């Protein structure tokens, strides 16, 4: 099962910054419209393979990217 998670942000610029940080670390991510089940300040979120959640959190923290949360994406394999 390819479970996914999402990183939520306060601003689009942080999402775009996270995208570059994670792509350069070769993590298979995609920016998606923030799923409705999450209340978020920002219209886009970053979908990533849930197994990578530890690396994702560490990489974003190291790059000082401000996030508002990391959540599992329930019940779907494609996010």
């Amino acid at each position, binding site marked *: 099962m390819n479970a996914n998670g999402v990183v939520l942000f306060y*601003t*689009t610029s942080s999402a775009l910054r996270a995208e*570059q940080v994670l792509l350069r670390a070769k993590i298979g991510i995609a920016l998606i419209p923030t799923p409705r089940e999450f209340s978020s*300040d920002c219209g886009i979120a970053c979908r990533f393979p849930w197994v990578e959640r530890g690396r994702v959190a560490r990489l974003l923290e190291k790059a000082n990217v401000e996030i508002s949360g990391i959540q599992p994406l329930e019940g779907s394999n494609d996010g």
Partner: protein
Amino acid sequence: MGLELLRRGTKTRMIYLDHAATSWPKPPDVVLAMREFLDLAGGNPGRSGHRLSVEAGRRVYLAREALAVLFGVRDPLRVLFTLNCTHALNLALRGSLSPGDHVVTSGMEHNSAMRPLRSLERQGVSLTVVPCSAEGLLAPDDVAAALTDRTRLAVFSHASNVCGALQPVREIAQCIRARSSALVLLDAAQTAGSMPIDLAELGVDLLAFSGHKGLLGPPGTGGLILGPRVDPRTMTPLWQGGTGSRSEYEEQPEHLPDKFESGTPNGVGIAGLGAAARWLLKQDLQALREREMEQVRLLRQGLSALPGLTVYGPERDDRRIAVLSFTAAGEPVSNIGRRLDEDFGILVRVGLHCAPAAHRTLGTFPGGTVRLAPGPFTARAEIEATIQALETILTTR
């Protein structure tokens, strides 16, 4: 067809020596990036979640990142985009100063800083204008002596747009930091892109830059960089509005860069500016500067052989940039500018260059000067032709 004609005109009839006003031509990458933005990334950056919006946002972000690398800034979100350098200076000055605060500036400033400062002065901010030498240089000790316990900001231009005087920024910033918690705001309109600039190395807290001069981007772009000592929560934006984030709140968000970037940005311009910054990152900026300085040395040498000419600004290469001003005894600068353009296709700027304070310092107010500003693409032959043209103008009056 139109472009071809323009290019042919460039080769045969035009010599562009007005890079201090705006650089021309731009690297082809800049034009391509702007076209691509309109063709392939037509969404509104950061507003919607769909692919065109994300792609537009991505191009704006990548420009932020390239500029952060260029200026040695770790966090790209502390690069704020503005319409131009004037907007960036207004944001820094009006955003941080309140009645009762004291601000220090120099006698070489452009009106982009001087006019907002004079306006703030009328609102209760006290202002000290530190005089410069006749060459246009600021003495670090004089700046330090002007500081009071209410000084919140010191603002000065990195290099003069009139005579090319390059201020000893590191020494000035050191002097200020040794005595005060005042922040240093550098107006890098004439230096950004034309020489290596590292915020931390210079000791600068806020850097205002123009996108369309040395950075070789399109007009309508500029920015303000907030160094690590600047607390954005203590700054107020010039205006409030939509940011694409926190849409459920009617209060302006505190997050960077949104707090200071309300309203749809100039995406196409910023995409061009990003391409320009990436083009510059592939160049050796010190070598580009050296190339421009060679042209200025040649100009200076040629001008000094002409009768009745006075050249302004520092002689030492390490205290100047590639901007040169002169006057000719008995010949109004407007006549020289007109003849250079009409008879020789040489484009320069004459007059006061929006900097009356600088011209007072140099002793060229109100007559003004003729300003020659070569750029990174100026050829030696163009400089030689300019000297020859000036010789003809001044000997056949």
